[in-house]
């Protein structure tokens, strides 16, 4: 049989220059989906087809794809919450110190997702929680596909009457993903900078779930909101207006923001160190790393750890004014659209570094390789967590290290490079 001269054959159904330029610069060859390909950067719709039972797609050893088959265990809001809740209960059952709770019954180390319920299924549980804090505000988000559209805030039970009705009917109510919502406690005390709200977008690459090996991209950024609202209308209307302004366009992962602009994570660090001090800043970043790893550990048992797969996630995190980070959402398909030249450079480099790790040496892949790239190819990624390495160290048998016990390793500043650093809480 004919052997191609070792050049990777690629396919994609996402027409973005940051991808295609990266493939072309490696001298890879574009082919069609029905031909023999080695590397397929696919959209989430396509991955569903590839791994669905009906199509019976069988990937060969020299084929790699950029999603795990059931990534939605992490990337769908309701499933993410479900998996994290399950994970916490399991730890609690085994008596793990990680599942320790405080005097109010809140998890000390694992409370990083705002209180969330599924509607209509958990309606009654939600009502119970709602009544504990009747003045709180909650945010309703549709579970399945549409991001941005359909998000709204409520502060009165009457505003979600519809789901109350649905929950009372029998369990034959169809829970199609179009109907299902998650309702989460709205973080109404976000950290403001210059009086502006922002959230954090961080990129995390997972090459394998069991053992867990993940990398954090050092060049994450803060997305600021500039929202124009008229001061005259009532508070809730304000927020409603706020959201509909903010959720105007579906930009994939940009769903939640009119971007007033972006800051690098190193800017954020400089600002926080200057205004709040070094210890609390280090603690914040430690906690951010911690919650990302915990979220991955939570889904690791249920993810189909297909060896043909890797995945680059977009994590959305909000920091509140007590410098506590909250995990809002994980995106399987972070946007590759670039709004500015700087943006384009960032995304280009992101893909470049991702490919260097996922497809070693840019050569025809062998999915059986050990997925342990040498340090030199990491680029702007740094090791977030390597389960294998941690276990061989003997330090990680039961994740004794926790956030807040950081030893203040110097290299955890974003502007430094090359130090494998995110192990302070180990």
């Amino acid at each position: 049989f004919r052997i191609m001269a070792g050049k990777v054959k690629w396919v994609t159904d996402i027409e973005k220059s940051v991808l295609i330029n990266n493939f072309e610069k490696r001298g890879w060859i574009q082919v069609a989906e029905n031909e023999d390909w080695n590397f397929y950067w696919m959209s989430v719709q396509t991955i569903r087809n590839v791994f669905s039972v009906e199509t019976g797609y069988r990937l060969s050893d020299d084929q790699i794809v950029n999603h795990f088959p059931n990534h939605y265990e992490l990337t769908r809001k309701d499933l993410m919450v479900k998996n994290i809740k399950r994970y916490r209960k399991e730890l609690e059952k085994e008596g793990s110190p990680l599942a320790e709770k405080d005097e109010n019954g809140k998890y000390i180390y694992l409370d990083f997702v705002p209180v969330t319920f599924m509607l209509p299924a958990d309606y009654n549980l939600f009502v119970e929680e709602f009544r504990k804090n009747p003045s709180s505000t909650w945010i309703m988000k549709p579970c399945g596909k549409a991001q941005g559209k359909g998000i709204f805030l409520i502060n009165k039970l009457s505003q979600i009457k519809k789901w109350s009705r649905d929950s009372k009917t029998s369990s034959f109510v169809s829970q199609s993903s179009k109907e299902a919502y998650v309702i989460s406690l709205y973080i109404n005390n976000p950290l403001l900078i210059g009086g502006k709200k922002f959230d954090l977008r961080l990129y995390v690459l997972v090459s394998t779930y069991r053992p867990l090996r993940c990398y954090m991209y050092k060049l994450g950024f803060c997305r600021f909101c500039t929202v124009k609202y008229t001061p005259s209308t009532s508070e809730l209307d304000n927020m409603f207006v706020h959201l509909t302004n903010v959720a105007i366009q579906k930009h994939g992962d940009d769903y939640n923001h009119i971007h007033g602009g972006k800051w690098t994570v190193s800017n954020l660090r400089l600002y926080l160190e200057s205004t709040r001090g070094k210890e609390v800043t280090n603690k914040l970043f430690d906690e951010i790393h911690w919650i990302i790893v915990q979220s991955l550990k939570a889904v690791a048992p249920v993810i189909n750890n297909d060896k043909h797969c890797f995945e680059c996630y977009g994590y959305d995190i909000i920091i509140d004014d007590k410098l506590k980070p909250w995990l809002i959402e994980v995106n399987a398909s972070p946007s590759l659209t670039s709004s500015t030249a700087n943006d384009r450079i960032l995304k280009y480099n992101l893909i470049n570094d991702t490919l260097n790790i996922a497809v070693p040496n840019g050569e025809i892949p062998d999915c059986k390789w050990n997925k342990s790239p040498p340090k030199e190819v990491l680029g702007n990624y740094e090791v977030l967590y390597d389960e294998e390495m941690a276990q061989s160290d003997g330090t990680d048998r039961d994740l004794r290290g926790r956030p807040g016990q950081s030893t203040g390793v110097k290299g955890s500043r974003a502007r430094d490079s090359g130090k494998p650093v995110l192990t302070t809480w180990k």
Partner: protein
Amino acid sequence: AMLDPDRGLSLTIARVVQRLQGSSLHSQLERQARVSLHKPEIKLESLKEDIKDFLKTSGWEKKLQNAVYSELNVFPSPCHPAAPPEHIKEPLAYMRKAQGSWEKRILKSLNSMCTELNIPLAQKRPANEQKELLNKWNEMGTDEPDLSLFRPVYAPKDFLEVLMNLRNPNYENGEQPSFRNHLGLIQVPLKVKDIPELKEAFSELGLNIGQLGIDDSAQVPPEFFENEHVRVGQKVLAEQDSAAAQQYVRQGCPTALRADLWALILNISNQPEDILYYEQLKSNVIQHNLLVDSLIYKDVKLTASNDDYYFVFEDYLYQVLLCFSRDTSVLEHFTYSSATPPKSYIQGKLGMEEYAVYYPPNVNYNSFILSVAPLCFLYHEPSKLYQIFREMYVRFFFRLHSISSHPSGIVSLCLLFETLLQTHLPQLFYHLREIGAQPLRISFKWMVRAFSGYLATDQLLLLWDRILGYNSLEILAVLAAAVFAFRAVNLMEVTSLAAAEAVLADLSTLKVMPLLQIFLFATVT
């Protein structure tokens, strides 16, 4: 005329005493002294000594020391008791004259803008407008008034033209050999330091002395320098000693300590009366509308909103600058500045002093904005941010916008830059001059903005640490020369001004301290 040292000292003492008398510190000290009378350790027979000891141990003496130190830093030493006030502003007559002409030009431009647009320089706001402004005080950035008709009063290059045309009428250019060879744009014979003098002045930047910005990088273990430096910084803060802080920051500030160290050096403590003063300025803004307000809006929109780092602080910038334009305490610095503020009156109250409104001479707010913005990284409480900015302005930044002979004035900085370049990189200087790319044309905008908006924020803050530490802006000129030296190879290959500008367009990746250190201490001359 040289003053004998004793005379000079007693004049200085007299002046400092005069300035501190009646200040709030003075009344606080008096109050403390009175309170101490109740203490058992104060005995009638040794009253004076005991009170002095008490003030020492309670830290009040230190506060007084800091205040005296601050006065000495800010105000120049008196030259001669008979020297007229203009000489304290600026000893050289031709400089005073040039500054006066420049101010006239600015005021003329402002006035004609008023006439053209049929807007008064100053007017009282109607009540509903006042209410609206008060409501949106914290988010003026969301406003989008129509500013298309307002144009900046002048651009940096206009100012540079004026500086280029300065001449000392007592000076025959043709005869003195040392100056005949000056090929740069500045043609006045001010004394500037050469490299040996700079090495001495900036000795703490030497190669064998630890620096933040160099010795805290990832490759260097923190035990070598960083940890100890942080420890010393914490001690300096605990002692609350301005002079020690000023010495300390020459080696750079740890990020977590910087805000407090700068406040200590600038002697800003954000007392209740300071907060009250700020609130008063704010109410002035609400009540009266100044033409320059629109210029401020426009400039903030143009500069800060487009900046990768500063856009976040847009709202703070309006607050600080609008208040600043109404702050008459800033007028004090005009006694030692060559500038005189243009004066206007609230509409309909011409000639009535209580309705007079003064303008800072630099009504092109471009540079202001960029000197406020980095401070937003350190201070988020508006009145403190305001005071820090105001103090930085009256100590340093005003010198960048007025024509004077002061060593930290923009004229001297330009000359220092050109001299350094011409002396130590003659080939480069000559080449750039030949292709019509006089180096100052490129570096002027860096210096006039103290590099704000050109360097990455963390690097800018390390640079400004040294401005505070050395109480001088000369480091701006040295850095400008160091940047040219760093990119010399590329610059030698360009053949036009535009190409030279392109080579020097992006300074955001530069590391300031290594550049300075190499230029001053490691370049073979």
